[in-house]
């Protein structure tokens, strides 16, 4: 790693806007509101369009994974095409470590900035183990704690949104509630010094509020699980707005939360100690973090369970247990063992149609995605997994065609409830069309 980097200075806190890539829109908005409470100006980049990919291709080695191309392309696009003053912005990037090449995003971003003539723009890595010093961006443990809470609340909101939106009777109910709680929760997190003692109450309040949305659950919807490489799984920019496409096709999206990925990253350190007696110093702090995160997850699960009408997400321990029959939890690069485990867990909940998203040529997903499909299917023949590659050259029509095939197949194989057997797999939309 380059030892010389541009630090984010204390002055910059006043003058600079921190640009945030569009990975987890719901979650990041919450986190940004927390940061703004501490005086940071930040903006979520919601731009899309071919310029982004093109800038990525221009400034990053073309064989680098698609998320790197997109994230870097989006930053450069903001500076070059969208009027952000390059002398008044800083970039922040969430950075995982480990043996996957994704651990190099920060370096690649800095290289690209230099190449494009913006080497002076500070880049702040948001990582579990921060190695760099940015005097203007020093987060106290309490800020970090609040940010983590914001992310976990992002999880519950995103989860419930997916469960309600396809069934809402009055269009817009769900989105309004999402909007409302994004504001309310961040307000509470910022104001309330003792927020953690009340978090349970807030989880419950959210779950109950979503449960009250008038819904028509008689509509039959195919539940589709979305798993995969962390960026393309969540980012609408990365996955060609997959969530929207699936909802339009009449499916209910089930997308495991980010907290499991956090727990997985923490557990990787614990497992290094258990398996190899490495990272001894990290063992105790990681154990503590592990416990704290699990505690938050428990609150989230309990709240959803108590609302009674929702599918309840699993605990991390449960997912881990499912994995162990298929793969060692020592396998920890990229999404590692968590990826097949999430597929198993989805299937266990009756979500048997799963889209496994990955950037074209994703190294860990050779093993954990495509490599695990056969053993998973051998033991769970009812599971149907379709692997979708995302890439600057992969066309949407191909991706959607494949997903459509899975959806049609899912409707075909669904136990036929009524008499009109063959017309079962015409969507309502098609029926409407035919009648026009």
């Amino acid at each position, binding site marked *: *790693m380059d030892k010389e980097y541009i630090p984010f200075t204390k002055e910059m806190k006043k003058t600079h806007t921190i640009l945030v890539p569009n990975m987890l829109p719901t979650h990041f908005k919450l986190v940004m509101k927390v940061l703004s409470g501490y005086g940071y100006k930040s903006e979520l980049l919601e731009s899309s*369009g*071919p310029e982004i990919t093109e800038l990525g*291709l*221009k400034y990053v*080695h*073309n*064989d680098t*994974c698609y998320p790197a191309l997109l994230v870097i392309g989006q930053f450069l696009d903001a500076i070059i095409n969208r009027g952000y003053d390059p002398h008044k912005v800083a970039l922040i990037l969430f950075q995982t470590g*480990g*043996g*996957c*090449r994704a*651990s*190099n995003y920060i*370096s*690649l971003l*800095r*290289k690209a900035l230099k*190449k*494009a003539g913006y080497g002076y723009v500070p880049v702040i890595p948001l990582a579990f183990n921060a190695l760099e010093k940015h005097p203007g961006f020093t987060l106290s443990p309490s800020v970090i704690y609040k940010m983590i809470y914001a992310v976990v609340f992002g999880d519950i909101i995103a989860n419930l949104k997916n469960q309600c939106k396809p069934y809402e009777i009055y269009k817009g109910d769900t989105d309004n509630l999402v909007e409302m709680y994004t504001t309310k929760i961040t307000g509470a997190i910022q104001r309330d010094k003792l927020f953690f003692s009340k978090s349970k109450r807030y989880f419950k309040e959210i779950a109950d509020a979503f449960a009250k949305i008038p819904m028509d659950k008689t509509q039959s919807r195919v539940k589709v699980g979305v798993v995969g490489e962390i960026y393309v799984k969540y980012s609408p920019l990365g996955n060609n707005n997959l969530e929207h496409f699936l909802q339009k096709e009449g499916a209910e999206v089930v997308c495991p939360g980010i907290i499991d990925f956090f727990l997985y990253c923490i557990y990787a350190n614990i497992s290094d100690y258990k*398996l*190899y*007696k*490495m990272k001894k110093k990290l063992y105790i702090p990681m154990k503590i973090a592990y416990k704290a995160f699990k505690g938050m997850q428990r609150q989230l699960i309990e709240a959803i369970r108590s609302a009674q009408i929702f599918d309840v997400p699993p605990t991390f321990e449960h997912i881990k247990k499912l994995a162990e029959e*298929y793969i060692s939890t*020592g*396998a*920890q690069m990229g999404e590692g063992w968590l990826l097949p485990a999430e597929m198993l867990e989805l299937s266990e909940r009756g979500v048997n149609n799963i889209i496994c998203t990955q950037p*074209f*040529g994703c*190294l*860990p997903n*050779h*093993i954990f*995605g*495509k*490599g695990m499909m*056969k*053993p998973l299917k051998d033991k769970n*023949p009812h599971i149907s997994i379709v692997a979708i*590659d995302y*890439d*600057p*050259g*992969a*066309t949407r*029509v*191909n991706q959607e*065609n494949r997903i*459509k*095939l899975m959806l049609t*197949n899912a409707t*075909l*194989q669904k136990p036929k409830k009524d008499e009109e057997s*063959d*017309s079962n*797999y015409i969507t309502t939309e098609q029926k409407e*069309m035919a*009648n026009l």
Partner: protein
Amino acid sequence: MNYSLGVDIGSTTAKAVLIDDNGEILYSTYERHYSKVLEKCRELLENVYSITGDSSINFAISGSAGLGISEAIRVPFIQEVVSESEVVKHTAPDTSCIIELGGEDAKIVFFDGGIDERMNGTCAGGTGAFIDQMATLLNVTTDELDSLSLDAQRIYPVASRCGVFAKTDIQPLINQGARKEDIAKSIFQAVVNQTIAGLAQGRTISGKVMFLGGPLSFFKGLRDCFKETLKLSDEDVIFPDYAKVSVALGAAFYASTLGHTYNIKDLLERVSKATLPTGSSNVKALFENENEYNEFIQRHEKATVPKRDIASYRGCAYLGIDCGSTTTKLVLISENREILYTYYSSNKGNPVDVVKNCLQKIYKLCKSRIRIKGSAVTGYGEELIKNAFSIDYGIVETLAHFTAAKHFKSDVDFILDIGGQDIKCFKIHNGAIDSIMLNEACSSGCGSFLETFSKSLGYSAEEFAQKGIFAKRPVNLGSRCTVFMNSSVKQAQKEGATVEDISAGLAVSVVKNAIYKVIRAGSADELGENIVVQGGTFYNNAVLRAFEKELGRNVIRPEISGLMGAYGAALYAMRATLSSIISEERLSEFSHTATGMICKGCTNNCHLTLNKFSDGSTFISGNQCQRGAGLKEGSSLPNLYEFKRNLLLSEDSFESNKKTIGLPLALGMYELLPLWKTIFKELGFNVLVSPMSSRELYEKGQFSIPSDTACYPAKLMHGHIMSLLEKKADAIFYPCLTYNINEKLSDNHYNCPVVAYYSELLSGNVERLKDTVFLFPYLNINSKRELSRGLYDYLNASGIGSFTKREIKKAVSCGYSALKEYRLSVLNEGKKALDYAKAEGKDVMILAGRPYHIDSLICHGIDKLALSLGFVVVSEDSLPLPKVKAHVNVLNQWTYHARLYNAAQYACENERTELVQLVSFGCGVDAITTDEVRSILEGHGKLYTQIKIDEITNPGAVKIRLRSLIGAMEESRKE
């Protein structure tokens, strides 16, 4: 009567089937739609109307381009695969499996035990389109290709993963003069292998198999290949009459079940009102207005070469031949460098005949007035042509192109050549070539793609190019590879793009591919001031303009753009005083035959072509080393690759009373074999190491590879496992190692995810591993104590034996000593090699890659090729390197990769030492390392040479790279 109509609109063709109540086909059609999908749709409906009249019909649409239409005219859509299962249900319910090849898709649908569909991944597109392209390459129609294949005698191995790769394999075969019949069959076999290995992935294809889709209904040869390969009897294969319209038929069946009817008149109206959404395009028009275009044309008309009428010229002349991958070019120049005669032709599958005919013509024109005083040949077919016609010089392409470009612009500092197959670029610094970039397989074929594509739309290349000039909204087609571009065109067609927009879009794509993938330039300034572009593709004004626009700079395109290699060769030939070129009399008797054979010189088993000429002389092509060419045993220069191979493959004795542990010699095992081997021997096992990789070994395991885009070294692992299973190893061992040995050269010491965890994938996907004990513990190899503990727990629990802590500890200790010894002997040998080079004044090549790149199949004999070119070959781990972390701009966290940076540093600090980096296709980590290694080398004024390797063997391309490197080294030494 009740009519049901199914329409299938695919990427290039439209199909329609009309059936009656009984499922009888009343009308069916299969036509190309030339991107005009709505018009075609209307035409089909009108045809149907002439049969059905005003009766109402059931109607459904299918196909990739059908989706958009179904939405636009509001009729039901049925996914293609579902449509086919309708066909099976109605016509042959006992079918257990469908294999369907379309223009770009390949599918297998299994019906036993629930429908299981498999479609080709994004990287395996191109079957029908691929066959079209191959036929063009062989200069035959597809029907001729089919009948040729029936007379084949042998099958050449052709990479089956991707159309582009297959082409790279086939091109050299054509150049080497292999029989067309054999090539034709090899092409079909490649399609079959691609389908079976890529799609079935281990699931057995048996029972009744139905074959569908255009290519399978047109080509008997292809059907035969499938039948033979799958070992199917006549009763088990169904080749229905409706194969090419099956999806439309299925849609018709589906429509008949829906119970909604339409009036055709009404449908026609909907079609004529429909508009397809046009895709958002941010690609700017190539020309704003007519004036810009005129200025452009005038500017480029200035780059001419003086010509002289051959009929009146008297004196000496020089001949240049450029025998390229798809075309052959000849240029004859006068003593004043005026062009007397030029020739440009497709190879027509046999460059020797092309050159012969052309030479005869030249001799006729020369009469006694003109004497050829010198001749030179360059390009893929250089050696073949040089031998066949006794040409004076064979020169490397880069040199030929540079010589020619200098003639147009003496201070040229950047040359870009886009030919049919290759993109080559080189920077000129201080009058010498100092950096060479060649495309990888993935960006090859851009030029010929343009040509093939224009033909498929029914235009000549010139017409197609001209259409793009004034396109208003060029479509964005991406720049990954031609297969992807093809796929993007599909999307654009769906969105209703015009031929003009597609033509311009393709031009922009080709250019972007060159700039961003091959040159990897961020800005025009990186290229230089004086840029000369050439190659046949630049005759296309749309491409030329797109390049200037993308760069924001005017460039020079010589009028003889496509002949520059030959012109350069002719200029080079001017140094001759007396030519040895074949005389007119001997030429008239000249004939040539080519036969294929397999080299037995080493395990590489190169496919050779023996060319026999009428004077009794012979020439062997296709060899990767001197041995194959029948020359004396290569050279005696030190070769660390060979040394390491021999060191690892020492024979072992077997004792029948001991259990046998199998170690697959692949991926990380290439590094740690001494450690594991010793440990297991010490623990009382026979140790069985799988042999070096071979094509046969690869094929043994190919069917169980779940991810086609993983790197070749990883995919070979499957073959190694199969080979150990065949030899009945009692257990197979390949551990999971998140962390590699910490050599203290980097900030962390990871393995890449594939090396680290491939065992997890093997355990889940190689069915037969269940017949043995597969041991893949997670181990810490950085501490004797932890390794002993890990092995003690794991081995005792595995059931292959019981061991005491003491036994294990001792074995581990011995293992580390063996590993240390191995590393020391590699270092010692490295030192010897370097000392030898110094003493004998030889050039050193650091062939830098991963430990597993020494595998003779993976490295395709590149080490031997380098030796034959006079290099001493050392590996990245045999250098006397200081234990310091290299200064790099990226996270330096992988053990193997850290060595690369240090080796690059070593190359910079030592004279007569060059580094060539071997990169496996699909290696994600190397996307990061290559830029860094390049910047280390170029920062010190060294040349960076990268060779990307995969399944394909194209020694020609590698040779060009290495010879260009030598040329550049010599140039810089002269200074």
